[in-house]
């Protein structure tokens, strides 16, 4: 076979793979959005779900998803970013560092249902948090932490060594170099990674089944005192998120409009995940342009 033919075959194979990927994505998105879009209106987004009647909404589920997401980020971003900085800048090559790095990798490949069972045992039962937002957020932290550690470490390592040398050679301490040179330069990468991981957390269901629970108490959206049991802000109440709701409606729902609710919820979920992904790209790009001063 001559080289031109093999080159053409290779090119075609790569194009074919790309087409298969794009086609799958377009089909999936198209299917979910066309089926779900018709169900989404203001009353669907702003009314309570019903357990057996027609016309239930997803207000509480949507709120719960965002609240758990926020709390997960509150736990995992500081811990993950500091851990990533440690691995990139402070850890010395050797046994301990290898153990840490392997642990992070294993954590990131744990099936989410296993994380859910772990959460049930440790956070829900052993720590006595019960089915609660905080237990769900802790389980999702276990799930999200390795991603953020990884993204931070990679972003910091990708900064050219000469930048770091320039700072150290001026007599700047390691800590100030990390703070004023490395972290600012790595910031767009870290932020993009955090937003992308937010999309993953937002859509997670399995880890929440046994930690945040399958139901939501009646919420009073005029009561913002986090210590009262009907407050939407109370972190110790159980909370069904949007993706858990989709699973529950599909498997146990007895309302006549099960299909419509599931379709609508799926579309809302997908739209938010898409927003996270697109904003990660846009914000990352804007900040990168700003920091590198290309004007």
């Amino acid at each position, binding site marked *: 076979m001559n080289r031109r033919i093999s080159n053409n075959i290779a090119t075609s194979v790569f194009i074919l793979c790309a087409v298969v990927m794009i086609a799958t994505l377009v089909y999936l998105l198209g299917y979910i959005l066309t089926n779900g879009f018709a169900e989404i209106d203001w009353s669907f987004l702003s009314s309570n779900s019903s357990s057996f009647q027609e016309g239930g909404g997803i207000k509480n589920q949507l709120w719960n998803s965002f609240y758990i997401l926020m709390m997960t980020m509150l736990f995992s971003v500081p811990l993950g970013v500091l851990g990533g900085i440690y691995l990139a800048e402070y850890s010395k*090559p050797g046994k301990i560092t290898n153990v840490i790095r392997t642990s992070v990798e294993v954590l990131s490949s744990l099936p989410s249902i296993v994380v859910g069972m772990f959460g049930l045992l440790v956070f829900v039962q052993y720590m006595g948090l019960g089915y609660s937002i905080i237990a769900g957020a802790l389980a999702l932290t276990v799930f999200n932490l390795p991603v953020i550690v990884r993204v931070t470490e990679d972003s910091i390592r990708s900064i*050219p060594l*000469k*930048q770091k*040398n*320039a*700072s*150290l*050679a*001026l*007599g*700047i*301490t390691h800590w*100030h170099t990390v703070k*004023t*040179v490395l972290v600012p*330069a790595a910031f767009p990468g870290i932020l993009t990674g955090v937003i992308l991981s937010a999309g993953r957390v937002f859509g997670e269901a399995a880890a929440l089944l046994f930690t945040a629970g399958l139901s939501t108490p009646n919420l009073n959206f005029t009561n913002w005192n986090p210590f009262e049991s009907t407050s939407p802000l109370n972190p110790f109440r159980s909370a069904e998120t949007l993706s858990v709701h989709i699973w529950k409606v599909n498997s146990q729902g007895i309302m006549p409009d099960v299909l419509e609710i599931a379709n609508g919820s799926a579309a809302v979920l997908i739209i938010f995940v898409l927003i996270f992904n697109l904003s990660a790209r846009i914000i990352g790009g804007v900040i990168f342009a700003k*920091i*590198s*001063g*290309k*004007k």
Partner: protein
Amino acid sequence: MGNYSYEVENLNLWYGDNQALFEVSMKIPYREVTAIIGPSGCGKSTFLKMLNRMVEMIPKVRVSGTIKYNGNNILENYRAEELRTNVGMVFQHPNPFPKSIYENVIYGVRIQGIRNKKKLDEIVEKSLKQAAIWDEVKDRLHTSATGLSGGQQQRICIARALAVEPDVILMDEPTSALDPISTLKVEELIHDLKDKYTIVVVTHNMQQASRISDQTAFFLNGDLVEFDKTDKIFSNPMDKRTEDYISGKFG
């Protein structure tokens, strides 16, 4: 202070099991230009990085001997940060931070705690003038330093090193990534700076060494072969190996 910025005695350095410097002893005179020449891998950059201890960045480095900087041994009980604020360094590839020209120049002094805007403006102007680049950039101090040409970036880096008021400047092949005109400007700058600073330049360019330096050290395979007045090294070297190297027989 005395007449020497550095007095190096019996310096040995190992990277893991490989010895890179053997019993190097030399005295670097105060406020003169000292050039270090030699073929690739001879240890000249390693020696330079010893002078501000940047070599410690590399894992598994071991050192023996003494390096006295202004009379104090920097290998014992000496903070690297303190040394490096007095000993500036310019690297082979220009490495400005991806910040504005102004921010680049004041980076070091700002972290030392100078906050006064007027003082900072003065430092920027003085450092950029000393680095002979003030006229080229004075109207765009707040644009990105990475948008400048390589030669301009290198002079911004020199200004950044000067801003923290060192008394020694180390230069690691500062012109090897620059075009001939930029090279000429940096060489003129080195000539101007030696009134106020001790300068140590590593270069693989022998013409450059003969143009800019007062004395020249020739390194080969980790040994300091010869160290003398530049005129003497280039006209009448003592060692056969120096003669072979500068006449282009190897390296």
